[in-house]
């Protein structure tokens, strides 16, 4: 028969294992997150110097799409470029499109020319800071196993952070004087709520 005490001991064991091995799995992401966050906070990564620029032209067949953004996505896929379309998709003269595709370390500017059926691509190459910033919180990207894999890692990392917070709290509450333990957790929560309300101005 499984008693309440046995259940709690098992739960504590699972919490410890999840906290410990999950922490090892995401240790590299947490360090990357920390380094890039400090960079963002101190505006280190704001201006990525252009290291090198490249231009080329590619043949294009005009895709059928309901709006400019979907058409731009079709063009991006035809050109073999990988990464999300950032910023607005602008309409130039003659129904042509101008848009940007961002990939870690590279920013492509695509200008279409419907009359000649060509696309002009301008690639600005950036450095390690751009790569790290992109990796800080990358969303879903099609067409690249590496970026797809990193996106899954990113998704799993925020889920684990929450699990880690829960399992850590559980382990904290199991040891020592419950009044002190619950008191500490409550003070931590209260400080967060007060700072949060202070900053957002409520």
């Amino acid at each position, binding site marked *: 028969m499984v008693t309440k005490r046995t259940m709690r001991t098992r739960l504590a064991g699972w919490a410890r294992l999840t906290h410990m*091995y999950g922490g090892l799995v995401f*240790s*590299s992401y947490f360090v990357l997150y920390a380094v890039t966050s400090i960079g963002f906070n101190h505006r280190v990564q704001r201006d990525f110097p252009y290291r090198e620029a490249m231009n080329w032209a590619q043949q294009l067949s005009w895709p059928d799409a309901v709006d400019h953004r979907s058409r731009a996505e079709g063009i991006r896929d035809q050109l073999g470029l990988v990464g999300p379309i950032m910023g607005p998709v602008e309409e130039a003269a003659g129904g042509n499109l101008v848009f940007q595709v961002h990939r870690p370390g590279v920013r492509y500017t695509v200008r279409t020319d419907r009359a000649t059926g060509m696309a002009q691509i301008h690639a600005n190459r950036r450095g390690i800071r751009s790569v790290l910033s992109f990796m800080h919180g990358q969303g879903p990207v099609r067409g690249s196993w590496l970026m797809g894999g990193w996106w899954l890692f990113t998704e799993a990392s925020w889920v684990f952070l929450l699990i880690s917070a829960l399992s850590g709290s559980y382990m904290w509450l199991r040891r020592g004087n419950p009044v002190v333990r619950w008191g500490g957790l409550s003070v931590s929560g209260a400080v967060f709520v007060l700072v949060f309300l202070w900053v957002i101005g409520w």
Partner: protein
Amino acid sequence: MRRVHSYCGLALLFFIAMYAVSGAGIIHSSQLDLAPQIVTERVTLDVVGNPDGAELARYLAGKFGAHSRGEPTAVRENGRWIVSFIEPGGVVRFDVEPNLRSASMERRKGSLVQKLVALHKVSGFEGGLAYTAWGALVDMVSLAMVLFTVTGVYLWFVSTRDRRLGYAVLVASWGFTLAACIIHLAMT
């Protein structure tokens, strides 16, 4: 080491959880409705004298409870004053008549999720004491992530006899991250 790990975790627990939730909100921003709620209303003013932009902004902030990160902007356009109060996840914009008797007040108010997403993106230390404190907290949370990693790896090392699984996990984690960095750089 365990105490450092525990107490540091306890102090920053809710901030870290907030960053996890708001980070998820940013990654999934295309699936979320992050358009702010816009409310416009006509308001009457009782301004005394002929204030400059900063004085008018102070008056509007006091009367309508508008907040701003740093000084609000006040711009003169065709005799009208356009005063904007901008803070994470919200904007209040006043279009003040040239006679200073009335104004159009537009409030762009974000939901709690929008506020969280906006706060996630707040960086730097300027804009008043609250933002300086928040900037310091961002640094503390970031440094804590490194501290958790170092102390966590140490605690795993000293509390585990068979470390083969842990080594494999660590190598896979760091190998994947370093490989991703190197491949991205090589592809550029």
